[in-house]
């Protein structure tokens, strides 16, 4: 029974990780920008949701919309005001990474200063676990998490394959010039990538606030997982990133079956190492080997 419980928890966690990882993979895959400030977006979304829903007692829908608007603004602003100027000069991996990283530090501490450094949770009826069988407690929020992830992925897949902008996004990383031929603007598409990728953190952020609780460090933690998921799933594959996120969520939860809680995070990194050593391409990706 414990195993089944851990499995369900793992699916819930995995759904959250998958959503955030796909957001990161979408941005990196389309624009080739190593946007490690993605974790900062998660922090912003989580805290704005918590604050407006829990503190200001808004209805969850406007709370989500507020979080989404802020996060989209953040992503687009990063692209417009930070990444684009850098890429005009030399745009080396180093420079982009450090800038994103610096932003992550700023946001994490600003959030801590403004909202407090403690651990916050949102308790709703959904998050109260309901006994389904002896020893098996499932909170309806787990189903919400899995459902939300599925809905988002289906919508994203439709967007990327059936719309012109979506197709442009997929073409952007391989061939920016080709994109121009189709009458699309690579700069605009980058902004769309950032907006969309950042927006994908919102469901995960809200769910985390409701289930595990949040603190200002959550962004860094999520960023690590997204990075690991992207690599495990395969750089260049959104499906891979989603699977990677799911796998890591399951692994982290199932690890509790045999290991202490402190080591369960270590499991994530052991998996990451194993993939880097034996299969850098991940499940579904193209390996970025040294050329």
């Amino acid at each position: 029974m414990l195993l089944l419980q851990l499995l369900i928890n793992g699916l819930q966690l995995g759904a959250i990780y998958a959503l955030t990882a796909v957001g990161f993979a979408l941005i990196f895959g389309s624009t080739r920008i190593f946007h490690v400030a993605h974790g900062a977006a998660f922090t912003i979304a989580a805290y704005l949701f918590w604050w407006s829903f829990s503190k200001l007692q808004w209805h969850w829908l406007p709370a989500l919309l507020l979080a989404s608007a802020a996060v989209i603004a953040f992503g687009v602003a990063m692209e417009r005001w930070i990444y684009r100027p850098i890429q005009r000069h030399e745009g080396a991996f180093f420079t982009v990474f450090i800038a994103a990283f610096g932003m992550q530090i700023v946001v994490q501490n600003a959030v801590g200063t403004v909202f407090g450094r403690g651990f916050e949770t949102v308790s709703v009826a959904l998050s109260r676990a309901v006994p389904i069988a002896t020893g098996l407690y499932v909170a309806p929020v787990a189903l919400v998490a899995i459902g939300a992830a599925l809905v988002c992925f289906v919508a994203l897949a439709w967007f990327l394959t059936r719309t012109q902008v979506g197709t442009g996004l997929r073409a952007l990383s391989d061939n920016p010039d080709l994109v121009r031929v189709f009458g699309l603007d690579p700069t605009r598409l980058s902004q769309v990538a950032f907006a969309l990728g950042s927006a994908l953190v919102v469901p995960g952020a809200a769910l985390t606030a409701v289930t595990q609780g949040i603190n200002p460090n959550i962004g860094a933690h999520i960023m690590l997982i997204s990075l690991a998921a992207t690599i495990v799933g395969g750089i260049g594959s959104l499906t891979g990133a989603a699977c990677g996120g799911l796998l890591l969520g399951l692994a982290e939860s199932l690890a509790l079956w045999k290991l202490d809680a402190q080591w369960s995070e270590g499991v994530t990194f052991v998996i990451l190492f194993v993939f880097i050593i034996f299969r850098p391409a991940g499940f579904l990706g193209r390996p970025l080997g040294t050329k």
Partner: protein
Amino acid sequence: MLAYLTNLAVLISINAILAVTLNFVLGYAGIFSMAHAVFFGVGAYTAAVVAIKLGGGLLLATGAGMAVAALISLALALPALRVRGEYFVAASLGLQMLAITVFSEWKAFTGGIGGITNIPPARLFGFEFATPAQYLVLTLLCLAAVLAIVRLLVRGSFGRSLKAIRDNETAAATYGKNVAVVKTIAVAVSSSLAAVAGSLYAFYMSFVNVESFVLDTSVLLIAMVVIGGVATLTGPIVGTMLILLLPAALSYLPGLPSTEIGSIQQIVYGAAMVLLMIFRPGGVWSLRRGQGQTR
């Protein structure tokens, strides 16, 4: 006041060693290590254990720390360097997080969360370093030694190999550089020299615990290197001073609640990193020179 300044100077020297050695891989080779604090910690813990359990002096403790750090760095470098930079970031991040767990849980070696206390003072050829002033001399000498080693390597053929790999890895490989081996050696050198700082830290504080070797520390070190100036010998030292003197400077500003100083310090250097990358990727130290300098 003098005691305060001496203490600050010792900590600046120790951190400067870390910044200079991180710059060796980050600035000169373009290798992104998020795990530099791990080797700092490994050096500290090893030195502490050697001093307490084996009664070893400064040389033995530091030597052991360097060896262990180099070994662990190989474990990180060998797989991760075969593939591109993004992978190394992820792998080093993973190593850092794993190390925190190991440092906290492996009670036999690291004393768990409580850490190791009562580390005896450093002994060198019978002389015991007891006062902060003596440690200041010791750390400054070590900083000078590390700088000399790094300078020697960087100005010579190895430095050219590193810079070639940093500037254009494909071309470096095309012209005969065994990129993987060069990078691995660079990481091993950087890590073992970082362990020197760890050993000094353990003896000076006579106490080590995991709190000094967490991700925030690795991040702080990156900030020192980046803000001070990559690929210069003095840049990291400038960066170290700026960042470590910042809390002291901030405490003089009226109206800042002391509980927030840590946060504000981080916001300041986070913002500095962002702004520098947009306007002056060469770091603060590059501001004093004109454009067109080789690095």
